């Protein structure tokens, strides 16, 4: 966010419907050529924010700048962005060629050149030879590609995608994810992608903004969000997470000393948390970062003893619930079956020991 020349600059943007605040003062910069995702549950304001970029919703407060130009009052048909709609919005009265060429009509190009551009787009989205088909003769995946081609042929500075994969089945979805990423890298166009699917966002994006209740909670790379979520909401939204109650007992330059329920006193990186001694917080740890042992570790490594409550065999992995004295909920542990020691792990009630790497404990900024 330090770049001097972002393609999209969202500056203290807010949106109200009457007394309801749909968007609460969001500021974001999106860089040239970035695959940027807006991730959140339905109703979090991500689609509203996208529609504000497209110009379908006006901005109540603040301003949106696209390529340095203030877009306030600029109608959708004059903005240098194009959108792929959730419903695809393929024109039912036109065939594939006319759908893709829809936006070119205004540019008064020679017919041959237009056709050439359309053919190029058809092969880019791997639909060569489909030009004469009508919209109702296409499958969901094909409509999706037409919607993409129709937007991309306009050579937009930014392509806006509103949950474009939501209506596809799982297999097609994964295929289209790869294809989207390939297209984005080949064309170098900035993509702003709205999704409620955290896995999809992690797979596709350069950066992700996690949204909730009309606000952006955290903007980071997929790895950054996964490894260093700052709040409990972000941590629980992305992947599985164990939370442990904690209290700050001391702070010194970038580290905090915490009294963690079940684990005792620990020294962890502060993770940007502005908490001081005495504040309540929590510690988050991913199930796969906890290591399960059947006997007390001998090398003097710090460990906590618990009792195995439940195991679930998932083929590639196994999940365990371990009850640790002092924790109000059992800790979830996930381990690859390739590294598990032996079948003894499956006995319910048997004592086990958990260890962790120092950097796998994440201090939350809130309780």
């Amino acid at each position: 966010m330090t770049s001097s020349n972002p393609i999209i600059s969202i500056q203290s943007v807010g949106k109200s419907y009457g007394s309801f605040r749909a968007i609460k003062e969001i500021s974001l910069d999106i860089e040239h050529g970035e695959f940027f995702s807006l991730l959140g549950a339905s109703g979090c304001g991500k689609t509203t924010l996208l529609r504000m970029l497209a110009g379908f919703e006006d901005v109540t407060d603040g301003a949106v700048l696209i390529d340095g130009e203030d877009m306030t009052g600029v109608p959708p048909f004059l903005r240098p962005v194009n959108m792929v709609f959730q419903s695809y919005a393929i024109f039912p009265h036109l065939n594939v060629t006319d759908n893709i060429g829809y936006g070119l009509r205004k540019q008064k190009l020679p017919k041959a050149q237009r056709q050439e551009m359309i053919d190029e787009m058809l092969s880019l989205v791997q639909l060569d030879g489909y030009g004469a088909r009508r919209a109702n003769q296409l499958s969901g995946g094909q409509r999706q590609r037409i919607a993409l081609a129709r937007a991309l042929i306009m050579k937009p500075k930014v392509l806006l995608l509103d949950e474009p994969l939501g209506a596809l089945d799982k297999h097609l979805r994964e295929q289209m994810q790869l294809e989207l990423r390939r297209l984005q890298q080949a064309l170098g166009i900035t993509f702003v992608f709205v999704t409620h699917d955290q896995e999809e966002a992690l797979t596709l994006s350069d950066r992700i903004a996690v949204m909730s209740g009309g606000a952006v909670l955290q903007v980071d790379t997929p790895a950054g969000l996964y490894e260093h979520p700052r709040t409990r909401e972000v941590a629980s939204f992305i992947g599985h997470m164990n939370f442990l109650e904690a209290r700050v007992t001391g702070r010194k330059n970038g580290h905090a000393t915490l009294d963690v329920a079940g684990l005792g006193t620990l020294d962890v990186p502060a993770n940007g948390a502005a908490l001081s001694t005495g504040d309540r917080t929590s510690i988050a740890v991913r199930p796969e970062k906890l290591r399960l042992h059947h006997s007390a570790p001998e090398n003097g490594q710090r460990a906590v003893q618990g009792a195995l409550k439940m195991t679930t065999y998932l083929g590639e992995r196994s999940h365990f619930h371990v009850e640790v004295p002092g924790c109000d909920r059992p800790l979830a542990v996930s381990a690859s079956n390739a590294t598990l020691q032996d079948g003894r792990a499956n006995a319910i009630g048997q004592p086990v020991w958990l260890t962790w790497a120092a950097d796998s404990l994440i201090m939350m900024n809130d309780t």
Partner: protein
Amino acid sequence: MTAAPARHIRARGGLHGALHRSKAFRGYALLSPALVVLFVGVVVPFLILLMMSFWTRQGFDFDTTMTTLNYARAVDEPIFGTFLLRSFWVSGIATVATVLLCYPMAYYVAFHVHRNKMLWIILITLPFWTSYLLRVFAWRVILGYEGVINASLLSMGFIEKPLAFLLYSQTAVIITLAHAWAAFAILPLYVSLEKIDRSLLEAAADLGDGPVRRFLRVTLPLSLPGVIAATFLIFIPTTGDYITPALLGGPDGAMIGNLIQLQFGAVNNWPMGAALSIILTLWIAAIALVFVFLTRRAERVVA
């Protein structure tokens, strides 16, 4: 488990079994009341009419020898062609006027009314709850020599003597038909406009079209089914209408319907009336086909 109920049904015989077995049979069974009504009310009278058109009048009775004499008369005597042409002209203008006037109303309700849409539709069609005859008479009061329009124009000093062309003219017939059939235009237009997916209009805007182009390239082509339906619903019945021209038409306002009515009434030449009805039906069918063909072509060109 699953085989048992199937065998149970197959074991049933007679009508009941057939009802369960054949989807097509069940479909016809459900349709049968409508089919009976259509057959008795439309097909049979039409066949009678068709047959009678090949008869001739003999005194107060019919000569049932088959002949095309009536059709020859209809072609040879120019009065029939004149009336037919005038009917198409008057109802054509009335149809175009109605659709043009009703489109904005239907558009407004479909796109700009967000609450109580049904209430709006009911209010718009409210005048049509009164009798057709009553509405025609109402227009007589409005358009008359000393009617509402003339009286107000006179009192405001825009004219010095009443406008005579308002009543008993083709204009009067066209105005009255256009108003009387408005509900039949608004409803199909409203339905076809309401059905248009709003994201299509957003997509058009996103691809660079301003409001006017958006309307011409998306809204209008997608509402064409409604326009075609409205056109047919008005053009077909108004061409044969005889009440409005009889009450408001005056000398140059009479239409083919009046002529047909005369044949069945005062002239008492039923076979001739039947022949004229058949000719009218065939012409309407031909015009309808050409119209559908043209709108299909237009749709391609505009898009």
